[in-house]
Structure formats: C-alpha cells, structure tokens
C-alpha cells in the first residue's frame, strides 16, 4: 500500500514525534507513505468567508500536485486533514470557486484526489482486528481517553470520518492496542483552539474541563490527532504540574501505536510534552521507554 503523504508544517516543527512515530509505525504495518514533493502549508484554517477564495490557493496547489502522483493523499494532523478535505470538496462542487482558484495557479484539478486520515487507513484498509494481531506490547487495559476535538469530525458532510456526535474510531483503535477507552462527555468539545494565543488564558478553562472530565472517568492518558489540541490539553495542566497534583499525558495516537508495535526509542521524541508520558509506560512495564520523560 503506497500513499502520498502530506506531513504539514507542525509535524516538521513542534510535533516531530508525531511524524516519526507515524512513519515508523506505517513502515512496520506495511504502509508506505511517500512524501509529496514540494508541499507547502495547508492554509491552517479553512476560510469561512464565502467570498474569500485566496486561502484556498495553497491547499489547492497541494491537491493538484497530489493528483499527479495518482495516489491517495494521507495526512496526520487534524487541521491539515480538515483544510485539505474541505478544499477538495469545494473544488469538486463549486465550479465558480474552482475556476477562480485555478485561473490563479493554472492547474487542472477538480477534486479527483481522495484525502485520507491515517486513522481511516488503520480502520478501513488494515482493519483494527488485524492491527490487534500485529501489536507486540499490549497496554493491558490501560484506561485511555480518546479526544477528537472539532476538526476531525466537522462539518460531517464534508469532513467527518465518523459520527460527529458519537464517534468510535479512536476508541476502536485504542481497543485494538489493548487499552480500555474511557467514555467521557467532553471528547468532542472544542479545546479553545487558536484563542490560546490571546493573553488572559481564555483557552485554559475549556481545555481544563476536558482534561478533568477525562480524569474523572479514570483516564491515565489522552490521545488525539491534532497538534493544537494536544498542546492546549497538555498546557492546561501546567499549574497542576507545578503544584504536584495529578496530571495525565496527552499523546498523539501514533505515539501509542508505535509503543504497541514495539518500535525503538528513536521514533519517540515526545517533543514539547509538558506532562511526561514515559512514567506511565514504565510503570506498566511495556515498551521499556523509562528513559524518555
């Protein structure tokens, strides 16, 4: 299975471990991710003004170049996935916008590329049952909370990889790795997103609610596929960490996947993690990543 791969900026800057753990896991699972040549920023947010087509140019260029490879396009970051998939939808359905965008960058593209999230490949192409057969270290029922955020699921008619109100894909993924998914009501609530950049700690309160809810459900860790969500949920715990209170690590789903597949330390970087993930796995005796904190 060979796919075109769009890493996105964050995976080459603040979330290198997301990238390295995904690439190593895919290799181990026989999935070849071939990085798209000369990719550029996805645009970061999908433009919501109906007459603003300019932000579509960058993702459109990526999609048009993916078409030339003749392969499906895979991304990991929820934001990249959301923007690429919605842009693809617009370029397929809205002829006016398509003409406007491609009169600017002169490409011939009308939404032919299939945009996939790595979770979809794990679920639909490999299958969670065969994934389960391939893991070398089970998490032995470790309670883990799946956190979806918004971008992976909404708007459902353009993006949704799962039911936007009661998604299952991350839970099923966790089950395949031997974790016990924790059910908690905030798994699809917004983390606060870019408002984190505003002074005054506005995002801290929604993010903290999410973490508290997961913890009260018994979760020992949270997994997600969005670098911004991961950052927000992690940094919402900084006060608790300083005070020495109970904190739980927030991890990319590919990081737990790599651990379950028994991959070496080199692929796990845990870059930028505030709450150190290593201790949990050390205490479980799986993986042997005690050195990483």
């Amino acid at each position: 299975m060979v796919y075109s791969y769009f890493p996105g900026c964050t995976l080459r800057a603040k979330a290198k471990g997301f990238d390295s753990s995904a690439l190593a896991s895919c290799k181990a699972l026989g999935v070849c991710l071939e990085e798209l040549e000369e990719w550029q920023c996805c645009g970061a947010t999908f433009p919501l003004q109906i007459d603003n087509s300019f932000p579509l140019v960058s993702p459109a260029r990526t999609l048009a170049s993916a078409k030339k490879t003749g392969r499906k396009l895979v991304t990991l970051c929820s934001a990249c996935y959301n923007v690429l998939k919605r842009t693809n939808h617009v370029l397929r359905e809205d002829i006016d916008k398509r003409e406007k965008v491609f009169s600017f960058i002169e490409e011939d593209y009308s939404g032919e590329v299939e945009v996939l999230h790595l979770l979809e490949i794990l679920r639909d192409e490999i299958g969670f049952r065969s994934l389960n057969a391939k893991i070398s270290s089970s998490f032995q029922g470790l309670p883990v909370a799946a956190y979806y955020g918004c971008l992976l699921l909404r708007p459902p008619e353009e993006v949704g990889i799962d039911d936007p109100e009661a998604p299952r894909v991350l839970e099923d993924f966790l089950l395949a790795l031997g974790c016990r998914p924790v059910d908690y009501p905030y798994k699809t609530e917004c983390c606060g997103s870019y408002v984190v950049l505003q002074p005054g700690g506005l995002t801290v309160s929604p993010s903290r609610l999410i973490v508290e809810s997961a913890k009260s459900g018994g979760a020992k860790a949270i997994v997600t596929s969005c670098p911004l969500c991961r950052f927000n949920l992690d940094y919402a715990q900084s006060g608790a960490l300083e005070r020495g209170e109970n904190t739980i690590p927030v991890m990319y789903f590919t990081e737990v996947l790599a651990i379950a597949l028994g991959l070496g330390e080199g692929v796990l970087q845990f870059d930028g993690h505030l709450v150190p993930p290593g201790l949990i796995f050390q205490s479980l005796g799986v993986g042997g990543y005690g050195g990483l904190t």
Partner: protein
Amino acid sequence: MRIGVFICHCGLNIGGVVDIPEILQTLAGYDGLEYVTDYRYMCSDPGQQVIKDAIRDKGLTGVVIAACSPAMHESTFRRTAEAAGLNPFRCEIANIREQCSWPHRDEPRRATQKALEIIRASMEKVRQNEELSPVSIPVTRQALVIGCGIAGMQAALDIADAGYKVTVVERLPYIGGHMAQLSETFPTLDCSQCILTPKASEVGSHPNIDLFTNSEVHAISGYVGNFNVTIRKKASYVNWDICNGCGLCMEKCPEKTESHFELGLATTKAISIAFPQAVPNRPVINAEVCRHFTKGKCGVCEKVCPVGAIDFEQEDTFIHREAGAIIVATGYDLHPKSKVGEYGYGVVKDVIDGLEFERLNSASGPTQGEIRRPSDGKIPKEVVFIQCVGSRDQEDGYPYCSKICCMYTAKHARLYKHKVPDGQPYVFYMDIRAGGKGYEEFVQRATEEDGVLYLRGRVSRVFEENGKIVVFGVDTLSNKKVEIHGDMVVLATAIIPSHGQTDLARLLKISTDEWGFLSEAHPKLRPVESLTRGIYIAGCAQAPKDIPDSVTQASSAAAKVLALFSSDTLSHTPEIAVVDEELCRGCGVCIEVCAYDARTLDIRRRVAVVNEVLCEGCGACQVACPSGATYQRNMGLAQVMSMIDAVI
C-alpha cells in the same frame, strides 16, 4: 355550427399583455364564427350574462371562452352555457392566461399571436364536440374511517349521528390515539381523558358505528361511492365476544413486558388492556412475549379466565365491507430521539420526549402524576425543555414547523411548576408560535405567573455527568453561553407521519408530500379532500396540528362525506374513452397504459372494456391503441388533427 367566442381581459392579467382589439378584428370572418366579444371579467355575474344573452340571441351551438385555465373556471362557464340552454360539453376554454399572457408578459406581440392560435384551436375542437350527458354512479351510503384518534372519532361520530353506517378501523387494540396518552390539554388545562373518554365510549357503543380495533386495512378496491374494503382483524388470542373485561388474566399473567402505551416508562403483562379506561375494554395477548407462544407452556390466563375467553388458536380474520367514502385519519408519530445525536441518541434515561412527559404528568401514568425522573425516581428540581428538535431543521431534520410544540412545551413547563413549586423550568426556543384562541395569553402566563425561564437559542449538546444532565446552550438575546446542570431534559421532537402511512396511501392510491403527510386536493380551497374522489383526510395525517384543528378538519371531512351521501347517485364526466368493439382486437395494450385501472379485458368477447367511473379521460389509451379502436369523447384523433391545423 354557430360558434361564439368570448374573450376575457381578466383585468390586466390578459388585457395588459394580449392585444384583444386586434384579436377581435382578426377573428372576424373565421369559418363558423357567429359572434365574438370581450369583457373585463368574464367570470363575474355580468360577464356570464353576456355569454347567456349571446347564446340565446344569436342561437349559438358552441362557445369558446378565452380566459384562464380550465382548472379554474371550466365548470363555471359550462354551467353558464347550460343555463342558457346549450349542452355544457359544447363549451370549451381557450387558456390564454396561464399558457399565454402570464409566461409571455415580456413579448406582447407574440403573445397576441399565440392567443389567437389557442382560440382558433379551441374553435376547431368545439366544432366537432358532441352533445354529452354525465355518467351516473350509484352511491353506497356507508363510510369507512381509517384511524381512530380524536380526528377519526370525531368524523365517525358526525357521520353516524347523521344516520349513516360507519366502519371504523384502528390499528391499536384501543381507540383514542395519542390523545389518550395526554395528561392535560392547552390552553385550558382540562384533562385529556375527561374530554376524550366520553367520546370514546360513544364510538364504542354507537348503533351506527362498526368498530374494528387491533385491525388494519388489508386491501381496497373500487372508486367513489363504491369502495370494497378488506379489513384484517389481527389475532388477539382472546374471544372478545365472551370476554367481560374482568382483568383476572392480567393480574395472574406471570410475564412482564414494556408497556407500549406508557412508552416504556412502565411495565405491563403479556396479556393486557393498554389502560383502564380503554375502549374496547378487552385484553390482547402479545404473542412475542407470552410464555405460551415463546416457551410453549404456561396457559395461566386460560386457567383463570372465568368465561373461557382465551383462545390460543385464534388467527387473523378478514372482513369485507362496502363504503361510499373513506376518511383517512391515521395520525402521527414523533421523530425518534434515538436519531438526535447531539442530545444523546436517546441513551440518557432522563432525556425524554414530550409524550413521555405527558405520561409522567398523567394521573393514571407510571408515577400517578408525580413528576419523577425515569433514571432514579427523584423529583427533578431543574428541568430543561428544548423546542424544535428535528422541526425547522433543514440540515438534520425536517424543514417544517411541527406547530404544537410551542404550546405543549409552555403547558409542560407550567404543569411542572404547579407540581414542583420550588423547581425551575427552562425553555430553549427559536420563536414562540402561539397563534390560536387564548394561546398567546397561555404562554404569557407561563413566563409571568409561573416563572418559566425562556431562553431564545439552540442547545448544542446534552449529556449526563455525575447524575446531572448537562445542557450547553446559548441565549441569543443576551449573547451569552448558557450551561445548565439540570435533572431532566424534555425534547419537543418533530411530528412525523405515523409509521406505515405511506404504505396505506399507496394502497388507497392517494398522494403524500415528500415527508409522507397526505396531500390535500388544494391547500386553501379543498383542504380535507384527497386528489382521489371519495377519499378525505383529517388530523395529523395531513400535517401537524393540535386537537381543535384536528377536530375541525374531521368535522369538515364528515360534512363532505354527508354531502356525497345526500343523493343515492353521483355524476361523472362523460369526456372519457369509448371502445369501438368492431375494431378492437383485444391486444390489451390499453390496459397496461391506463393509470386509473379503468380498463379490463372481456376474455369471452376479446375486447377491451372501459369502466366509465374510473376513466379520467386522460387519453393515454387512445394514443396507445394500435387498431384505432379507442375514441376519446370530444378529443378524438380527427379533432386533435384539426386543432393542430388551426395552429400551424
């Protein structure tokens, strides 16, 4: 033939576009034209007088009225012609409004030319029109009412009281429909049971009403005045003729199951009467749970029954009835809350719908009228009501307004406050639609006297956390996010047609809208008739409506039926197909093309036969007939050809 042409200006509708003086001038001298004139409003009394005078004075033998669509005024002008002594079928309409002046408003020159052509074609048609007289149909003066909620009951009683026999078919074992489940009714807060049960018992005992509960319409054939109905009476496994409704069987039955009537909020027995006041007060065995049927042993009810009414061998029976008219009053269902993901897919026990709240509030309900939440039986101190769940939702639900939810939510909130004075009801709403006598005042009292807190905004999520029901919403009037940690949530879910209604509509050959509600013949002027003659509609089967509106529509439908029954014959248009038996070779092509089932093959003589009553005169058979044996009266092939000649 001495033809008269009468051109209507329809105010400026026609006269403002088509050059009528020019038409008058051009038409003069056309073959057979005896008289031509125009008038500003031909359909008005003086306009009709112009036609009558001309027919008499000029001795006209055919008239063409150039005006609006024949759907609008053909019958008006034919009556005018008849009043002046002309055979009404020698009067034809040339439609120069809908098919000319309206669509060609911007091209008056060409519109005038087209109007002229339409008028000439109609003159050619009328030239060859025969004199016809209407077909007469006998009428069976008995009615069939399908569905026996409040609308069906009202319609049946009105017809029965007028002295005609009514057959009533109800799918459930009892009559009364959803109204039997309601606690109090808006805007007077009188008890639903108190106003319903006397009516129900009247239906049950009326000498003119033949009531079939636990029954469905299985098959139907025939046409207005002469329907043949097959009713399937489902096996109840109890001989209702000898059962006296003592209830001993229910008391002793060892198998419990969820009560359908209580919407799963209480249990009942495998043999049960839905509720104590049910009409008829006879039990039914639920074969899906009864131990005799599931495990092959038990039979307790059979042993205890003092009159020996239990009959495990009973089978469905089929009953045949004739009816001259049918009223469909099949009611509604609620949009299932299991389909509403943002409010928990129906999984959270303390998120209930409006009907479930009615049961909680009902004196005869599972909590004897005390408001106790389903999960733990505690009295909820904060209750959140959410309106428009599925209604007015183009994305995930239905675009229409369910009409009754604003009122019943106000009622629920008030009744809750009356029973739990220290409780706080919240209502999330989009708009308050309280159009009705005493309705707005009722909602006012909810906010002013009962302290119901109305919040204008939608709710994004409802979920359970630590025994509380958390509601995320917004108040768009203060622009604030609202988060309520309440004890119970009541969803005003959308009204949808009752399950199986589309199948019934197909059986009856009546049409529905895209959501499955039955279509009325005209949205304003014929609101209780279906497009099929002899079939009428009432209540929520047609559209969401409250009790007063359902009763009104039911009585109107009954009045239409009584008008139909006022004579023992009906007339039907004679402009239908006839078969020349000399030419017909019985190939049967016409039978396949007939959309009205009006054609059959006489196998013995090998000729096609037309049922004069069912034939609607569409002309499909005339076109399809390979041997030219079919002739459409007053629209024959030769006639059509000369109409075409007049145009080109």
